[in-house]
């Protein structure tokens, strides 16, 4: 275990705890995306690059888009309210 892995694991814990504690749903989604990015780096440090690719693409890309679209549907984003 190197120092970098300890830092990343600490970041993983912090983001995992911070995500449900955010007041706004948008902040929760962004913190969750940060969690996914840290997780992708950790996967590649654990020598499983295929998981890292998938985590980076799905966790940080697709699920972020889907969360944002859902927030837009329920009018949680700024500028998507009707009047």
């Amino acid at each position, binding site marked *: 275990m190197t120092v970098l892995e300890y830092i990343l694991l600490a970041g993983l814990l912090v983001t995992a705890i911070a995500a449900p504690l955010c007041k706004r749903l948008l902040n929760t989604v962004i913190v969750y995306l940060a969690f996914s990015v840290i997780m992708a780096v950790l996967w590649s440090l654990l020598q*499983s*690059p*295929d998981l890292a*690719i*998938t985590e980076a*693409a*799905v966790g940080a*890309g*697709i699920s972020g*888009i*889907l969360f944002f*679209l*859902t927030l837009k*549907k329920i009018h949680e984003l700024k500028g998507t309210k009707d009047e």
Partner: protein
Amino acid sequence: MSNTPENKTLTERLVSWVNGEREPKDQTLFVMEKRHRQPRRPQPSDEEHEEQERHRFRRFLRGFPVAAVMICGVLVAVLVWAVMTMPAFGEAGNPINNEVAEHYLEYTEEETGATNAVTGMILSYRGFDTLGESCVLFLAVSCVMLLLGRDAHNTDEHDLLKIGQEDTIEKQAPDRILQQVARTLIPFIFLFALYVLINGEVSPGGGFSGGTILGCGLILYTVSYGHAATSRWFSAAIYAAVRTFGLLLYAGLYGYYIFMGANGLESTVHFSMAIDLAVGLVVACTVYGFYTLFQRGEI
């Protein structure tokens, strides 16, 4: 069944229920409820009712964090206990270090024709598992289609107006910067996706990662050039055909593989590569379908 108001047969009632003409409520109960002339409690007025509801909601919210913390604590305790009872990490006598793993590592290339042991394992030795995952993705898109798909019954003028507004904004003021960058990048994204798909048997990657990258490229194209540009060459019919073809290709190839005795087909066809392509098609269609269904409710 004698006291049903309309003496319909079971099939007719089922049809009317499916069409949404009536709720599947028990008729006898309904009749009994009607006989009570006087309600037992005085019916609250609207304001009182609202106040009661708000009070109940607030009480629920007060109990909610306690319950959440308790459930999380129990889950964490169970998981920690499970981890503590596991054998120590990296010891030679652990149950994972048996002959199965050695066999996989030693004979994967010989038996499946895939240099990458992970690909050989998930596509040949445990192909049914991956077939199930592909089916899950297929079914997920189908369910999202059922839930979010727009048709004549669940679309009102408001939705159509909003979508029309977005379309006109996209058509009249397209983002030139985004379009130029997307035109530069999208060929390389598709190339990289194909590289990951085809090289799944020799290098990290494979169906799931390559398919996701392919879907991301499609989403970027749709975002930058508008939905109409994509649906011109990737319509709903082609979409359904592609994702069904992917799943059927996988099922057919794997069925043939099992039928031939599961002894590897590397001499006749690049088995892992073909299955990787099939999985990639399914995954790319899933990702793109999620995006368009969430965004507009149609492919």
